[in-house]
């Protein structure tokens, strides 16, 4: 990985948890990159993210391919995220391939600036060799505050499974 990437913090759940939250994020980088591998403790779920514990002013557009069809929608057509969080991709759960995790990459440019915050997310997950989801989402948090905390949540209200892991990177000179 390029030397402009600095691993700020990483965490692995040793048991099922409702949320993972990064707090006291330093403002010393230009961008943030969040990588995680998460499985739902429910039948399935989507990961959503919130900034600074704020529950308003999020919008998301999504492109989805599942191996047999492609679609796109907005937050109002997505499973969840009616403006209270930025929607990321789907993650597998108990109804899908055992012991697999959804992998997602979230990029947040200019997170410490005073403009609204844009967020992009790439994600993949797999279901018993019968299907797989590849998703790209673009979200906007219409808030000028610098991002100091990021909360990961299962939008369907399910916990994250044990061994779910997340790492937050800071990027300079990007």
């Amino acid at each position: 990985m390029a030397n402009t990437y600095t691993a700020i913090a990483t965490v692995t759940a040793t048991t099922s948890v409702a949320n993972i939250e990064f707090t006291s994020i330093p403002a010393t980088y230009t961008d943030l990159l969040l990588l995680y591998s998460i499985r739902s403790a429910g039948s399935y779920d989507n990961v959503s993210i919130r900034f600074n514990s704020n529950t308003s002013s999020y919008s998301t557009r999504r492109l989805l391919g599942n191996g047999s069809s492609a679609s796109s929608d907005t937050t109002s057509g997505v499973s969840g995220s009616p403006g209270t969080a930025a929607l990321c991709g789907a993650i597998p759960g108990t109804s899908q391939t055992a012991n697999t995790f959804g992998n997602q990459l979230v990029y947040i440019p200019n997170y410490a600036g005073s403009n609204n915050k844009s967020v992009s997310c790439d994600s993949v997950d797999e279901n018993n060799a019968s299907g797989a989801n590849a998703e790209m989402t673009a979200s906007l948090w219409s808030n000028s505050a610098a991002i100091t905390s990021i909360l990961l949540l299962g939008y369907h209200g399910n916990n994250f499974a044990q061994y779910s892991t997340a790492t937050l990177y800071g990027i300079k000179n990007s």
Partner: protein
Amino acid sequence: MLNTQQQPYTESRTPNERKTMPHKLIVDCSTGVTTEVELTAEEVAQREADAVAFAEIKAAEEAAAQAKADAKASAQAKLAALGLTADEIAALN
């Protein structure tokens, strides 16, 4: 100095308590220390509101899909009543 090493965290509650209380992992990026805490009442309320909102959206999506399927079946039945064959109706899709 930021700590990029994953830190162990401790849990004082019993397994039975953990099963009933939602909790979260908090990673303090200034220290690298991870703590496991129960959700606050406000957080639990927000989580429940999220689940309700999701259920409402899902129900609306399912209702819309069913209405669309019903309208399609009705239209196909009307076309068949006019004398169109199944192949002709399928060609309109």
